[in-house]
């Protein structure tokens, strides 16, 4: 039934809307209460979650905790240096991998692709589907193709970076496309009319006009990447290493993995260490999101 049909039916059948009775006013109030309740549950869940984590972990936020290496036996002197360093490395690697690839794909789809060609439609449908593939499946790809199998890198930092890059690639493509699409056609037409080539138009006009939107999207995609646990578990991130990765081909860990390891530890005194690591992870995410919001507000182009 289309909207027009609904409207037509509403217009022809008087009985659709009986006169407001007191009962309906009660229904209205009940419904309002239910809606406020639903919103309140979301707010409350977030508030309690933040409170619990802060309550469990705030005591651990010391310089020692940030700079020491994790210990498998001593919760009190455990730290998260290798996890923080690993997460920062992963973030950088993912960015290096995903930004050129994602933005190039977005430019291709928005500026070059002819929608009538089957291969262009294939790329579009494929990206939509990839965005819905569970992260653990990307982990399987990383395990079978990058860590073992054809690439055979082993359980190294680079394998983690590539896997997370592939995981967030669809997100970066989708947000970059939106940012590029927001640049009005008149900008392109003006540049082309002045004799610029298509690429010059894109490089000098379209990309500068959409860079704020792209940067915002990339930051959000990266914040999703560094919060991921499942793919890194499959790839085989190290549990509580007492060293930082020395290069792309060294073993590594990351904050989510360290949190997972501590949550699983039968010695419950590691729980506060897990909460401390969660706080650090959430602070990093908060910082990234603030930067994204700042970029959006400060540099977003209004056409």
């Amino acid at each position: 039934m289309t909207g027009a049909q609904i409207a037509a039916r509403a217009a022809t059948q008087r009985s659709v809307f009986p006169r407001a009775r007191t009962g309906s006013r009660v229904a209205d109030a009940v419904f309002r209460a239910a809606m406020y309740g639903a919103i309140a549950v979301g707010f409350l869940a977030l508030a309690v979650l933040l409170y619990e984590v802060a309550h469990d972990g705030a005591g651990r936020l010391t310089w020692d905790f940030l700079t020491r290496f994790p210990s498998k036996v001593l919760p009190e002197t455990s730290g998260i240096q290798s996890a923080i360093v690993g997460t920062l490395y992963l973030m950088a690697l993912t960015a290096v991998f995903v930004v050129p690839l994602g933005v190039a794909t977005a430019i291709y789809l928005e500026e070059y692709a002819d929608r009538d060609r089957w291969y262009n439609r294939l790329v579009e449908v494929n990206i939509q589907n990839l965005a819905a593939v569970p992260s653990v499946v990307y982990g399987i790809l990383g395990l079978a193709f990058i860590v073992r199998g054809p690439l055979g890198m082993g359980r190294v930092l680079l394998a983690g970076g590539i896997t997370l890059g592939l995981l967030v690639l669809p997100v970066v493509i989708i947000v970059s496309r939106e940012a590029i699409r927001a640049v009005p056609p008149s900008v392109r037409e003006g540049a082309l009319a002045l004799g610029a080539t298509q690429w010059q138009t894109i490089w000098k006009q379209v990309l500068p006009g959409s860079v704020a939107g792209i940067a915002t999207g990339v930051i959000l995609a990266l914040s999703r990447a560094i919060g991921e646990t499942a793919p890194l578990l499959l790839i085989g991130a190290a549990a509580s290493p007492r060293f930082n990765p020395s290069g792309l081909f060294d073993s590594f860990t990351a904050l989510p993995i360290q949190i997972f390891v501590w949550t699983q530890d039968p010695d419950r005194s590691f729980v506060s260490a897990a909460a401390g690591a969660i706080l650090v992870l959430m602070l990093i995410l908060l910082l990234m999101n603030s930067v994204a919001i700042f970029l959006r507000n400060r540099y977003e182009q209004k056409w």
Partner: protein
Amino acid sequence: MGASLHYTRTRRARGEHAIRIALLAAAAVSVVTTVLIVLSLVRETITFFGEVPIGDFLFGTKWTPTFAGDQQSFGVIPLITGTLYLSAIALAVAVPLGLLAAIYLSEYAPPRVRRMVKPVLELLAGVPTIVFGYFALTFFTPDVLREALGLDVRQFNALSAGIILGLLVLPTIASVAEDAMSAVPASLREGAFGLGASKLQVSLRIVFPAALSGIVAALILGASRAVGETVIILIAGGQVARLGIDPLQGYQSMAAYIAAQARGDIPTGSIEYGTIFAVGLTLFALTLTLNAISIRLVRRFRQVYE
């Protein structure tokens, strides 16, 4: 002069062409990714089915791949029912709450409130799943379910993992459903108001049905997220594949099994290694189907109004 102009043009044209090819190559990476995912899943799964009959896998009701000898069994049914059961609990929480939130944001909320509520929901959506898992295990199970509600739950149980999974899915459902309802043209609402309908009637009988395909797409998207979520269930839902629907017991999902199994250092080519891929392929097929349905619904819904 004319010659040099000509020269510049062809060089330019060649450069433009090269750029186009390079961009197309970048776009091809995402297709290659899909191909590689399918290839790696299928290849190992075929090897796996060389050792375990496909019928035993699909219809067997006992999942004990790590047991020895006679006790070893590869029936995937418990993992599938576990996945569906945990997702069902999550959706039982997330669907009513998410839809109510969506109706509120789309139909009732003043713009000022909307601008405040939406970022909070986005914040909830941005919390890493490991944090939800921690929350379920260290707070929701012991403090809420056991102490406050007096339920006799196991340390790892479906109720806690499912409800917290629901919180994870809630923002997804709320935001996609809200987009669908906001896209319903104002003229429909105005027409109904003109006929004397109340706000509630307009919301539930005009906007909701008009946006139905988009709303269903939101629900399917939420279901697909719940089905594919790994860490919450791995941490709080239990690691024993079991048939049944007792919310106080722990169950394992497909995704959680994959992560739990891959953590061990299983040798490539072993039968346990094969299970990761067979289960992974099953999960991949399930989420792909859900996503295909949702894309189709969203497309249909867009065609109506644009």
